[in-house]
């Protein structure tokens, strides 16, 4: 299963088995639901944003190893970062997962790069990130909750 090993790297399986930052956050500034209509998986992302900084992030919901690992690593990566930095990270992550190479700023997240070769699973990896994107937009608009589908904001690589 050489091909599988490239996708399900040890770090990915480890995060999937023991996800970080799982559960609800209270208080939170925004609670965003993200769904993948093609499989029915859902993720609930909680952010606590203060003074332009993501102070805390947690997630709940159900999904495959890839979506869970991606969400777990994402929450780790964004905690304590300024919103502008997080937005750059989102852009870099999406670029990587669509096969456009991994920016060094992605750090540990590069273990997810292999998924770019498994087109059928790209949406699993991006679910958390699309949800994060929508959460930041909701937060900026002064909303405390929202729902987004991973099909939205497609960039042609649907």
């Amino acid at each position, binding site marked *: *299963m050489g091909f599988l090993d490239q*996708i399900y790297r040890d770090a990915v399986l480890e995060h*999937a*088995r023991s996800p970080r930052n799982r559960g609800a956050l209270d208080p939170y500034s925004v609670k965003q639901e993200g769904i993948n209509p093609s*499989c029915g998986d859902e993720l609930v992302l909680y952010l606590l944003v203060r003074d332009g900084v993501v102070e805390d992030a947690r997630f709940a919901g*159900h999904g495959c190893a890839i979506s869970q690992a991606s969400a777990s690593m994402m929450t780790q990566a964004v905690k304590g970062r300024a919103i502008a930095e997080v937005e750059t990270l989102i852009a870099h992550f999406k670029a990587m997962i669509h096969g456009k190479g991994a920016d060094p700023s992605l750090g540990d997240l590069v273990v997810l790069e292999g998924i770019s070769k498994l087109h059928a*699973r790209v949406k699993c990896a991006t679910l958390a990130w699309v949800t994060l994107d929508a959460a930041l937009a909701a937060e900026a608009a002064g909303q405390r909750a929202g729902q987004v589908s991973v099909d939205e904001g497609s960039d042609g690589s649907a």
Partner: protein
Amino acid sequence: MAIDAAARRGDFPILSRRVHDAPLVYLDSAASAQKPERVLAAVDAFYRGHYANVHRGAHTLSAEATAHYEAARVRVARFLNAPSERSVVFVRNATEGINLVAHAWGRQALHAGDEIVLTVAEHHANLVPWHLLAAERGAVIRGVPLGSDQRVDMEALAAAIGPRTKLVATFHLSNVLGVVNPVARIAELAHAVGALFLVDGAQAAPHLPIDVQALGADAYVFSGHKVGAPSGIGALWVREPLLRDWPPFLGGGEMIRTVEVDRSTYADIPMRFEAGTPAIAEAVGLHAALDYLDDLGLAAIWDHDRALARYAIGRLRALDGVTLYGPEGDDRGGIVPFNVADVHPHDVASALDARGVAVRAGHHCAQPLMRALGVRSTVRASFWLHTTRADIDLLVEAIEEVRDFFGAVA
């Protein structure tokens, strides 16, 4: 004649493909069937020798194309044992066929408080058009649950059908549970209250002999792409006296009698329901696909299908940590949904794919059924006439490796 699946593999060019360095084992026929050489050749020859628009031209190619297209309609009527091809309407797929009924019949026949009876095991194609219609007309949807045997609960169905029921719409073969619905019995219940009875034959058409008259259906739909025909074509059959009375759905060329700038009158059936240039070459391909299936014999295909289902269920049940869904019995065809303990269906599917085994994972466009089964999604292996026991053995082997690979990932 029994199906010689190993020999049939040779009829399907794509089956000689390799995936991730392994030979392709295609166990996703329920999502869409692969195409036999004969269908590809028929479509290609049609484009190279006889293509033109239909029903329009006074020239030879146009007459030939029209003859091919109309012959396909006659062929579909024969496939369904319909009394006449006049009430066979070509559509894009089963989904469009159901929507056509919802619009042409439903928008004039349904009134506030009227009821539509559906089961929880329907494909979204046989749910969403009724949601849209019910919302517009103020109709009420009654959902019939499964019984404890994972078949439609016939008592609950009988109880759901009442004086306000205007439509009963259900599947012939379930795309998840693999079970045949007792359609003829349901027809009686529907007709006893004067309701229209629509049968979603999307999964039945590739697998079982169909006789719309014996089934007592008022309307029957299926998709070409699931019977080995090209994508982009399907058929709706409606009992003729009914269809004749329905107003048009889509408007445009071909479906008119006279047109003025601000009003029109409409053609007779079936043309009234085919606006614009149809899927011409796709109809020719559908004709070839139905010839292929009938040459092999749908009864033989169904026997093969059931034998594979029994074999697969037996082997999968022997695996630790594998949960199977769907009833067993003589009414069970080759659609086998399952889950592997502690591994998400999508991860299972990717791991099988890495071994060349193509299965589907997800809700299979049947979210209410997933809820009824108490799961979010499943893996689904589905078989067809080219599926062999060796394919199923490879599936089983690959599932064993999946468990080893993932260990326990929630």
